[in-house]
């Protein structure tokens, strides 16, 4: 359900970088731990984007798998369930290497072709 709030933030970010140009593609990198449902985000991007520079823009979302690292054990691993203790030593000195991202990576915009394209 947070997809609506996220879509709104993504659209604002995209519109700012579009600087008045029409946006055709919005590329988002979302970490697995952010629990963003791609179809739901696409739905809200379409809905909330109406009437603005991102109207009709396509969402391309990359899900970044979660990877954790235990410093004392000097090992890292992927997770499916949200368990953040080291499975080897049971310790809590675990850092998240990847999977918490929520960023607008890039956008594609339409731009007037100028005469001197050479």
């Amino acid at each position: 359900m947070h997809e609506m709030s996220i879509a709104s933030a993504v659209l604002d970010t995209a519109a700012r970088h579009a600087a008045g140009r029409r946006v055709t593609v919005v590329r988002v990198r979302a970490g697995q731990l952010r629990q963003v449902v791609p179809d739901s985000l696409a739905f809200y991007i379409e809905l909330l984007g109406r009437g603005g520079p991102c109207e009709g823009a396509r969402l391309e979302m990359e899900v970044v798998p979660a990877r954790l690292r235990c410093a004392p054990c000097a090992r890292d691993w992927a997770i499916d369930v949200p368990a953040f203790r080291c499975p080897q030593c049971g310790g809590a000195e675990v850092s998240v290497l990847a999977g918490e991202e929520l960023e607008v990576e890039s956008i594609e915009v339409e731009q007037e072709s100028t005469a001197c394209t050479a």
Partner: protein
Amino acid sequence: MHRVKVRVVEDALDANNTIAKANREDFDRHGVTVVNLMSAPGAGKTTLLERVLGPGMPGLRTGVLEGDVQGSLDADRLAHLHVNVTQLNTGGGFGGECHLDANMVRSALPAVGLEDLDLLIIENVGNLVCPAEFRVGEDVRMMVSSVAEGADKPLKYPLMFRACELVVLNKIDLLPYVDFDLEKFRYWVDQVHPGVAVMETSARTGEGVDELRAWLATLPERAGAAV
């Protein structure tokens, strides 16, 4: 007309985080410690606040910023306590949002009156999902989970459980009547957020409320020490 790729690489919530930072600077300048209180609807946030703040917080001028989609039912309940209560409706010009964001809180600050406070508790809109994403400039975040919700909630809402410095398990007076596995809950909270503080309370009977009061009362010292 041709298409151009524009590199952005910006956190989608940057705009919110920037305003949250401005709020935090205002809080710090006024020496106000701020708690963002979150839970699912009906977990007992307001009842806990009534219990906790009812006897007054000695030496701490305390205020509550009540976030609700609509109405002032919660603020009305707290009005008889010796605290400053400000209502913030997300339906009032914010599109009925399911959470408070930094900008909404910022807009309410003039009404809150930071110069008269030491401790501000922001009661977020009841929701276990969206509030976890939006910082509002708080020093600490606490959430309330209740035994009526089930022991699997940390697994289902890890973002929220990981975002908090304190997890309060409320309605423990109902334990004899519900199938709530306390050991499993504690295990999963610790797996999702290793080492996070957990307290058990009953806002109805008052059990565990003193511990929570003590946690809140010493917060300004601890937050000050951390700065």
